[in-house]
């Protein structure tokens, strides 16, 4: 009899911690005790493991005292995936497996009573955490081996049952077992609208040159956009075309995003790595938990995190619950979302582009720059409606654009040739390339992520351009935070134009983009639609 340690991972948000599952089998009062703050699903593991071990043809040390310690004890631990580590450590402690075989291996998997493995959510982030701690080998349920293999240099063993795992650890021939069901089965229905976003193109939209340019800048630097305009003007139409302007994800981004989807247990089957940036468009009736993350039991990533590296479109923004709007301040500013709950704090990445759309008033007809507006809302109601987006949220929006309905002259312009998404995407990719080179080794990818002080210190604006920004700050029409955001935006405009660094023109464009003022035609390129 003796003691053995197997390792597994517990997740807190998107960060993982290595947990030692230490099992001691010794003489004493016959009892199986679990210590070290297990949650309900782990306490149940005792019963599952015992049945699984017995039904796999091994002997559970039922006549001994079995103490199972999960350490470090101060971390909350969740999830059924501790089963495999507990079973393996128990077998090792009772001498069925050489203790040395467990060194450097991380075990992830839920057990069924007959000793088979079940798939669990979050394998990818667990493998990432293991890799970060120099643990080079993971044992996972077979369908998820591919997911874990995305981590470079990781040895992944996919197993179907406890018996197979034991055989591998004993270096014996591996017995056969029934295949494990993947976590998210394919959809029962497939419908035409499923891939609608991939089929829309920017060239479908006539006119709206400045709103299109605004989206291009947003895509290039990862900036937040607010589109306002009367109903039916084309806000949604434009927003849906934003993902088409984004280049494929880099390997690093793909891993982060896939990790979030793995946590949510919704990695599309047959596709382990997400290669395209996500586009999420939750309805305004969404709950706070659904938007920001949380939930009972395991903390789920919310829509803001599922849109990480992509775009989050919030149509009719003022109709979202007030506490959701408040809760968006953090992801808008820092690109992450923290869910504090009891003794547990989970942080998820949420570096997404927010695209907020709102009508100019509750009825959607009012427009301050349209003299023919048919709005019948009282000014008080308009103010009420606008107040929800004013203040802290509005200040965190980089680009504001008014979308005017298409006019006849735009529709019938014989010389207008709208650009395709692919053409714009190429420019966006080039601009992102420039940013990647500039920020190489700093951990930032896009202008929108660079902290203000660092930006001012290392990538300042020329003094004349700086003065343009300062003038607005002193005039009280721009906040300090706004000035930083304009600074970042100016860099993106410069990156798109390929001019090396922003100067007066780029800052002017950035200020106009932010304030909603009309752009200079020359900013849009030669013959703009």
């Amino acid at each position, binding site marked *: 009899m003796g003691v053995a340690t197997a390792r597994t991972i517990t997740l807190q948000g998107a960060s993982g911690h290595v947990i030692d599952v230490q099992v001691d089998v010794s003489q004493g009062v016959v009892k199986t005790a679990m210590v070290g703050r297990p949650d309900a699903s782990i306490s149940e593991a005792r019963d599952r493991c015992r049945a699984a071990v017995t039904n796999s043809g091994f002997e559970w040390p039922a006549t001994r005292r079995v103490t199972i310690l999960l350490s470090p004890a101060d971390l909350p631990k969740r999830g059924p995936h501790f089963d495999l580590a507990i079973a393996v450590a128990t077998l090792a402690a009772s001498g069925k497996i050489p203790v040395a075989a467990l060194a450097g291996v991380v075990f992830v998997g839920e057990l069924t009573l007959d000793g088979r493995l079940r798939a669990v959510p979050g394998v990818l982030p667990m493998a990432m955490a293991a890799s970060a701690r120099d643990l080079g080998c993971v044992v996972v349920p077979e369908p998820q081996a591919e997911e874990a293999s995305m981590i470079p240099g990781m040895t992944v063993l996919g197993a179907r049952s406890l018996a197979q795992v034991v055989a591998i650890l004993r270096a014996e021939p591996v017995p056969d077992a029934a295949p494990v069901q993947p976590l998210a089965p394919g959809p029962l229905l497939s419908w035409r609208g499923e891939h609608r976003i991939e089929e829309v193109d920017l060239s479908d939209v006539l006119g709206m*040159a*400045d709103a299109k340019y605004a989206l291009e800048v947003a895509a290039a630097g990862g900036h937040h956009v607010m589109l306002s305009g009367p109903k039916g003007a084309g806000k949604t139409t434009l927003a849906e075309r934003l993902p088409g302007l984004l280049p494929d994800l880099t390997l690093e981004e793909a891993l982060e995003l896939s990790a979030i989807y793995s946590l949510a247990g919704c990695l599309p089957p047959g596709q382990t790595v997400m290669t395209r940036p996500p586009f999420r468009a939750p309805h305004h009736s969404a709950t706070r938990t659904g938007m920001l993350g949380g939930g009972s039991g395991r903390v789920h990533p919310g829509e803001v995190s599922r849109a990480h590296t992509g775009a989050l479109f919030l149509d009719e923004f003022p109709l979202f619950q007030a506490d959701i709007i408040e809760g968006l301040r953090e992801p808008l500013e820092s690109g992450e979302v923290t869910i504090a709950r009891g003794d547990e704090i989970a942080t998820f990445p949420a570096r997404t582009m927010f695209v907020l759309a709102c009508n100019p008033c509750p009825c959607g007809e009012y427009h301050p720059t349209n*003299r023919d507006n048919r709005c*019948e809302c009282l000014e008080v109601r308009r103010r009420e409606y606008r107040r929800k987006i004013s203040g802290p949220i509005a200040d965190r929006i980089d680009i504001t654009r008014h979308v*005017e309905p298409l*006019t*006849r*002259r*735009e*529709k*019938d*312009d*014989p*010389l*207008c040739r709208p650009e395709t998404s692919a053409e714009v995407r190429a420019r966006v990719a080039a601009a992102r390339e420039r940013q990647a080179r500039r920020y190489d080794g700093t951990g930032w990818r896009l202008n929108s992520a660079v902290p203000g002080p660092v930006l001012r210190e290392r990538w300042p604006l020329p003094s004349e351009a700086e003065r343009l920004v300062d003038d607005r700050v002193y005039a009280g029409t721009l906040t300090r935070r706004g000035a930083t955001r304009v600074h970042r935006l100016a860099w993106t405009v410069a990156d798109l134009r390929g001019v090396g660094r922003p100067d007066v023109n780029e800052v002017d464009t950035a200020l106009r983009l932010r304030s909603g*003022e*009309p*752009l*200079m*035609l*020359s900013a*849009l390129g*030669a*013959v*703009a639609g």
Partner: protein
Amino acid sequence: MSERVARAALSRLSEPGDVRLTTLVGRLGANRVYELLRDEQDVAGVYTDVAARLRGLDPARELADAAGKGIRFVCPEDDEWPRDLDDLDRAEPLQERGGAPLGLWVKGPRRLDEACHSAAAVVGSRSATTYGAAVASDLAAHLAEHGVGVVSGAAFGIDQAAHRGALAVKGLTVAVLACGVDRAYPSAHRGLLDYIAETGLVVSELPPGCAPTRVRFLSRNRLIAALARGTVVVEAAVRSGALNTANWTTRLNRVLMGVPGPVTSAPSQGVHELIRARGAALVTRGEDVLELLAPSGSFLAEVPRAPMLVTDLLDDRERRVLDAVPVTRPAGEDSIARTAGVAEPDVRAAMERLSGLGLVEQTSVGWLRTGQTIQR
């Protein structure tokens, strides 16, 4: 040599708007002036300037070449010549440029005089905003739809927006260039100019092949002003070529109009100054322009009005009574009379009127405002 060929030759020799030459031609005729120059007679110092250009000049062949490219040379003796251009001869020169052109090189299917008969020039800054471009386009589209040709300079910014607005409604537009009509300046507007040459007119004082220079733009601006009955300036910074066109418009006694922008916007500053101090009419819609260009009183723009409200029908006393009627708790006539400061019999009379309009209702304990809003 015919007068036409001589004029073509002189247009090649001289810089556009050379007042010395136009005066000479007016006195002696183009043919005589050309002969004098060819014989190396230095009249008014012109020969010294053009000597280098005289060598190898073959005006007849040049006209034939131009015809081959679909370019015609329109002279004052032609039916197609817009008589309005002759006003230039009577106008004071500006920056030493002036006078009617010797002739115009024209490309396009329309007749120049008809195109310019009731035309409006829509001009403005190259560095325009999307606001200015949208306004210029809408304005031009509205004018073109009403049969008014749109004259402009095919430059970046407002000019191209004006042309395209007219083209969008399949209207007539005239581009006046500061280079040969076979050239595209700016080169990005090659497509635009080709399209205009197919449906409208591309016009220049300069023979084919000539390149644009600074002074040529200034001379060109006088033609834009002279070919149109009035000029609308949409966005011009304090230093803008469009202000030069505005000057010519005033000098020719044509209608000068300006479209305002935000008072804080630099590209609108020049226009605001035109309106503030130079007598330009403020226009915001195509209708406004039509009203100013049409013979006096023949077209009147509709004056924008606020929607009619029920309360507009009330007199002062009735209005005071209405304001005194409570919204939630009914009040008697005596109380209303006190609040409104109106005699009780008058209140009774007012109430009759107000309830007739559905603005108040009588309950068992007094009068109450109805839910009906004051909006119609």
